[in-house]
């Protein structure tokens, strides 16, 4: 499974007061960059709205685009609003909305303290002030380099504030699940008929499947491809052979490997996922 590729493995561990060891995966450069891009676009849109709103109201009030005087306060207010908005957005969202800006939420990321607790206002303020430093010399070069070399994917702001950005396994799984569902639905629309396996699989059959079988099956589902490369077709066949043999299904009843495996995946998925 891609989730546990050794090279993307960057974990941080802490122990809860209940003496349970929790492992969190820190978020890498890519997902964080995308999250920031989303946030930046949102802020850009909001800023444009403020600027055009101000310009529009000035035009309505004075029926001229560039009045000579009398609108200082509007301008100053706009100026301050823009700054407060662009700085405050990250701080307020990260401190009071569970460590997630909209972009981070979309990517399934969360800001936590390095101790595993929710980030409080001070660390959040610090890590966001340090954006200035991480941005240097341009485009978050310093921050990206720091993330690249840091053991827990920390940019400078994270190092000073003692925070980490973690990738939530649940969000990742939900996304993968939706992707697989979409693929199977697309195949069904193209005429793939799924046999009804859910009713047929009883308790004893389900118990026959073990951890490795599930990994095999979900790995297959993840790589489900409408036009598989030539080599992969034989593999699909072999997986089909494996499961029909293990579950004692007659191969004549389920002659096609793909619909059989898809139905099997959908039938047993709930047993393995949360």
């Amino acid at each position: 499974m891609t989730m546990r590729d050794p090279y993307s493995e960057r974990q941080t561990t802490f122990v809860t007061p209940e003496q349970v060891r929790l492992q969190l995966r820190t978020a890498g450069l890519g997902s964080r960059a995308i999250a920031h891009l989303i946030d930046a676009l949102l802020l850009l849109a909001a800023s444009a709205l403020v600027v055009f709103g101000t310009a529009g109201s000035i035009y309505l009030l004075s029926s001229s685009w560039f009045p000579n005087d009398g609108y200082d306060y509007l301008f100053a207010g706009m100026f301050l609003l823009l700054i407060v908005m662009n700085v405050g957005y990250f701080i307020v969202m990260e401190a009071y909305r569970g460590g997630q800006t909209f972009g981070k939420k979309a990517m399934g990321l969360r800001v936590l303290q390095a101790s595993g607790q929710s980030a409080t206002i001070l660390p959040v303020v610090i890590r966001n002030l340090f954006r200035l430093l991480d941005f240097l010399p341009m485009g978050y070069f310093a921050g990206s380099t720091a993330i690249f070399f840091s053991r827990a994917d920390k940019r400078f702001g994270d190092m000073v504030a003692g925070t980490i950005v973690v990738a939530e396994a649940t969000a990742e799984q939900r996304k993968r699940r939706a992707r697989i569902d979409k693929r199977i639905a697309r195949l069904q629309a193209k005429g793939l008929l799924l046999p009804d396996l859910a009713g047929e699989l009883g308790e004893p059959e389900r118990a026959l499947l073990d951890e490795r079988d599930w990994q095999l099956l979900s790995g297959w589902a993840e790589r489900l491809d409408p036009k598989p490369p030539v080599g992969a077709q034989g593999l699909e066949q072999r997986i089909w052979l494996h499961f029909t043999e293990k579950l004692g299904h007659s191969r004549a009843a389920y002659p096609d490997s793909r619909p059989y495996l898809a139905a099997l995946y959908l039938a047993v998925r709930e047993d393995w996922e949360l």
Partner: protein
Amino acid sequence: MDTTTFIRRHKPAWAELEGLLAQLGRRKARPDAAQLDRFAELYRSASANLAYLQTHAPASEAALLLGDLVSRAHNQLYAGGAAGRSKPLEFLLWGFPLLLKRRLPFIALAGALLLLGELLGYMAVRDNPAAIHSLLPAGMADRIDPARTADDRGDINSAIVSAEIMTNNIRVAVLAFLSGVTLGLFTIYLMAFNGMLVGGLAAVFAQAGYSYTFWAYILPHGVIELAAIFIAGGSGFYMGYKFFVPGELPRGIVFVQAAKESALLLLGTIPLFVIAGLIEGYITPASLPLELKYGVAGLTLAAFAAYCVYGAKRGEREQGGGSGGGDARGSLSLPASRFRKEGRS
């Protein structure tokens, strides 16, 4: 028990925990006692389940996902004293002055450096008027005309100028704080350079014989502004100091803690910059008699000093009664956490 059976048996409880978690996570969540009890119970059982899975199926996807759930529940359950518990008003009234008093040596160092820079800048430009060109950006030095300082500057929109100057100053202050990661080295540069700028300008005006006018146009806002810059510089120096002199704890931890205290110090300067910006936008350029402007400067100085002295006194009183230790605990304990503790008790 094999993993599937285990998962199937406990899944409803996990789903319930997930649901409760979503409910409690809402901004205006008002859970009742029964819900809270249930939440804690579910969290504990999920923790136990996780421990089981980690032992018997450590590599499984279920262990990973359950770990995620437990960690989110853990964050929700142990969030006490986190976001929203700090008391901004109390901090402003007496927490900030008290913190100022504790960091006085660092703030004084920043102030001394800035004044030293000012002196150097003054002497350099006095001896060699062309030196001002190396201090100021090209073009700006040419536009300085001491004779026109007191002219009515009708074309300048005070509200806009006020807002711009204020944000620019806050930026310098933030930079002074950030430069703490350079262990205070860049802070030295920032303080000295900004001082030289003011000193150089003062020399230009002094040579034209407009010293009295110049300071009348600097001091009304300058008193508060300089104080805020000193404080920001002090916050940067404190971080550097804590890195070199960490005391008993590991350097990394102490540095992070110092950064938090310094950030608090920096946040406290924002109201000062707002006040300074307002004065700079409205009072400084106004065509008032120069004496009145010096009067304003004196007034702001007195008000600021009174605020510091009174606030620090009150702060010591509040802390003496609250945590019964006051200064005896040394400078390592985090003021922010003390506020929160008192807020709850």
